[in-house]
């Protein structure tokens, strides 16, 4: 806990000393990051829906679709198609039934449960049909697993202590703590609405943990985790500029 600020402070001191000894100039820069996917062929994007599972407190399909649509509306050049969110779990289940398996697919509680549904992303005919319906857009779909987490681990925290003279000191104390939170894992899949083929797919995984006595609503944890993923998602479709400063030397 203390090591990091000390390290940061010492590196700052080193940098300041070095700056004093050299002719150097701080300059702001903006690094452009090119999109991972060439979307020049598309004018429209359809965030179709997701195969979602995990906790029932958050509808991963609906929330992820809504959030990505609103982000794309403000931060990409593509026109976002407003449509009903596709119930992909049902679509995948229907696909299985027509293939001869009459058993209902298992509820999605863990990541391995997703396997029974993943075949839907490879169904080129299905996505081509969706593409035709919406004038051949770029289709965004994938999987979202939002699951509760519980971890018991050793955590370092600061504690006040008083010596025999009554002087106050703050010392780091390592304690065993129960922590609760959520994990958000899955995959964004980008499909060509003209051919139904997958263009690109990207896995993600983020976790958040709180003290066990802290009550954080599942939905706010979900948004906190999605906030971390959004820049990566957007950098797949549109170029980003990362602002920073560097030191020019003479």
């Amino acid at each position: 806990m203390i090591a990091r600020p000390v390290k940061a402070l010492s590196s700052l001191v080193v940098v300041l000393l070095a700056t004093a000894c050299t002719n150097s100039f701080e300059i702001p820069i903006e690094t452009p990051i090119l999109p991972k996917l060439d979307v020049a062929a598309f004018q429209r994007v359809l965030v179709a829906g997701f195969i979602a599972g995990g906790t029932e407190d958050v509808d991963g399909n609906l929330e992820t679709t809504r959030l990505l649509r609103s982000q794309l509306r403000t931060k990409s050049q593509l026109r976002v198609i407003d449509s009903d969110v596709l119930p992909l779990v049902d679509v995948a289940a229907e696909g299985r039934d027509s293939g001869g398996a009459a058993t209902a697919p298992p509820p999605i509680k863990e990541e391995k449960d997703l396997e029974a549904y993943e075949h839907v992303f490879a169904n080129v005919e299905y996505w081509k049909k969706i593409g035709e319906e919406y004038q051949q857009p770029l289709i965004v779909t994938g999987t979202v697993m939002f699951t509760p987490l519980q971890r018991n681990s050793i955590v370092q925290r600061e504690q006040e202590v008083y010596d025999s003279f009554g002087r106050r000191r703050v010392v780091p104390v390592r304690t065993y703590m129960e922590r609760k939170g959520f994990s958000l894992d899955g995959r964004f899949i980008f499909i060509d609405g003209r051919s139904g083929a997958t263009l690109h797919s990207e896995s993600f995984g983020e976790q958040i943990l709180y003290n066990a006595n802290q009550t954080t609503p599942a939905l706010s944890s979900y948004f906190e985790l999605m906030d971390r993923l959004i820049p990566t998602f957007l950098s797949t479709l549109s170029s980003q500029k990362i602002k920073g400063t560097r030191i020019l030397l003479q």
Partner: protein
Amino acid sequence: MRTAVIPLALFLLTLVTVPLQADARSDAKKQVEFGITVAQRGLWREAIYRWERAAQIDPSYAPAHNNLAIAYEHEGDLAKARTAYERALELEPGNALIKQNYELFREINDRTTRQGTQ
């Protein structure tokens, strides 16, 4: 006789090359200074030209490579930026400012490749 000639020749060679190196460094410094002035006005292409010239004139001048790396970063050419930072650090491994620039660059570079792409 011959053994006395060789050190003498080496000494004379040193006398000739040291001022030449000093000239190269001074020319490179001028290019670097001009590059900084134009970069501060947002003329990054001109700055790149100046710093590339500086690196050509004196390839062992670390600030030229450091500044080039920053300019490449600004232009979005991350591969060239990495090469230039690594060259600058090779020349001055203990330079805290180059190290700091390189670490910030790596943070951005890693961010763009962090998530598992399939």
